[in-house]
């Protein structure tokens, strides 16, 4: 158990709290591979729903045995998404650009790359069909947030005639939160996290973005939220993300993990 007092919190806890607000009141949140902070937020949203006896949201954590209800193999997630039965999903990128394009493949020429990432996973499909896609990239730098990605695993927006009920709604980093404006095909700075500044965000962002005259500070997680995260969510998280749960929350699971995929 994390013994941090509620007035102090870790970056991961702040980001999970922000993501939980972005999720809103929905029926089904799915979380993909390598997404421990979104998984924290999704389980937090489910706990809050439980506390209010809402019976929602449903949460599907990829790689979990306990926190998923799928019985038709790994294709069920995608079939569900194709039908509009998944409301929220999370994607990241080795590079993310100002038009919301994400790159999970490589840096440099695709045929002779300088850097290779694991691959696109389900992004080249889910980004199009899930209504609320929340982008997350903890490292906020000119290396990760670029003018133009080297490889488009999935584009931020699509022409009118392309079937596209889904797409990005926001991008969260260790420094700030951006909203995505689908009409303008650009990000807009929504808030800067405590201890960070607008100047620092501009300095470390490789793409142009819109911003209001006064940029608010990201609200910090409440004591109640921190308590839920640390005492209820963290042990659940440990099934799929044992290293993360241990490092961030000092939590461990009594059940075996099921790996990623």
């Amino acid at each position, binding site marked *: 158990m994390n013994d941090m007092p509620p007035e102090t919190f870790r970056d991961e806890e702040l980001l999970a709290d922000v993501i939980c607000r972005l999720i809103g009141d929905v029926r089904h949140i799915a979380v993909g*591979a*390598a997404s421990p902070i979104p998984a924290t937020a999704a389980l937090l949203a489910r706990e809050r729903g439980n506390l209010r006896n809402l019976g929602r949201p449903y949460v599907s954590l990829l*790689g979990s*045995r306990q926190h998923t209800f*799928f*019985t*038709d*193999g*790994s*294709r069920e997630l*995608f079939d569900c*998404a*194709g039908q509009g039965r998944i409301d929220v999903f999370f994607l990241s990128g080795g590079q993310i650009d100002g038009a919301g394009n994400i790159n*999970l*493949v*490589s840096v440099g020429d*695709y*045929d*002779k*790359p*300088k850097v*290779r*990432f*694991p*691959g*696109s*996973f*389900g*992004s*080249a*499909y*889910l*980004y*199009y*069909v899930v209504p609320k896609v929340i982008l997350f990239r903890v490292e906020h730098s000119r290396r990760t947030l670029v003018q133009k990605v080297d*490889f*488009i*695993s*999935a*584009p931020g927006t*699509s*022409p009118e*005639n*392309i*079937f596209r009920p889904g797409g990005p709604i926001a991008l969260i980093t260790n420094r700030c939160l951006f909203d995505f404006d689908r009409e303008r095909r650009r990000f807009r700075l929504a808030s800067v996290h405590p201890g960070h500044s607008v100047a620092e965000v501009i300095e470390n962002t490789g793409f142009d973005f819109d911003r209001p005259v006064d940029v608010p500070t990201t609200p910090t997680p409440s004591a109640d939220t921190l308590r839920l995260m640390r005492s209820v969510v963290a042990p659940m998280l440990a099934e799929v*993300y*044992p*290293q*993360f749960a241990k490092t961030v929350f000092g939590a461990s699971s009594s059940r*075996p*993990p*099921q*790996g*990623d*995929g």
Partner: protein
Amino acid sequence: MAIIARTLDEAIAPIADGCMLAVPRESSGVAMAATRALIRRGVKRLHLVALPASTLQADLLIGGGCIATLETSAVSLGEFGPAPRFTAAILAGTIRMLDATCPALHAQFQASEKGVPFMPLRGLIGSDVLAHRPDWKVFDNPFGNNDPIVLLPALKPDVALFHAPLADRAGNIFVGIQRELIALAHAAQKTVVTVEKIHDGDLLSDPLLAAGTLPGFYVEAVAVEPRGAWPLPLPDHYAIDAAHLAEYARLAATSEGFADYLQRYVYERHAA
């Protein structure tokens, strides 16, 4: 009719040099003992298809020099970091990579299951995943009005290989809810399975078990390999061996370290 092979090497005999081999994701049941046996046998030029992604298995086969073509949507070691031999091979250009996206692979296997030539899929248009796949086509939905959609060709692997909890003597395989294993077997010409143990009785006679059972009709060969997914997990049976994965990630970071790993855990057969 499936045979219960006397040895693991006998069971994996259908996996010939140059064949298209289909394998599942880490959390479904990966035949790691069989993978090590393939490396020991020196299998070459495989076209490996991982449905829909892979971890240690693909990395080990790449490092072992067994892969000519890799077709999947991602390879990493999950919480243990990047897959070092995969990354090195891509940067050195020593394997041919067919980058996919998870639901595309599922759709391509479904096409094969149905015996149809292709399956349509949403998404993809405007991505560089599609741009680098000349074998995938954009077509105008014949039932729509100016509605482009991607068509993906059926994937018909020569052999599917996975690990499951139980087989009976007729070669029926209990996979539980890991239903992508059933899709793999339906799509492949031949299926080779390793199992934890033999079930005395008929898996198809109990309706509860039958609901999660692949009929032996689809199965070429079965070998009994207790802890055959090690060091990867077998759902509901055992967890990933985290210490081993961390050791692998450390050793495989260099080609010398990887050779050391192969010597210790693959060639000297006392691993699991």
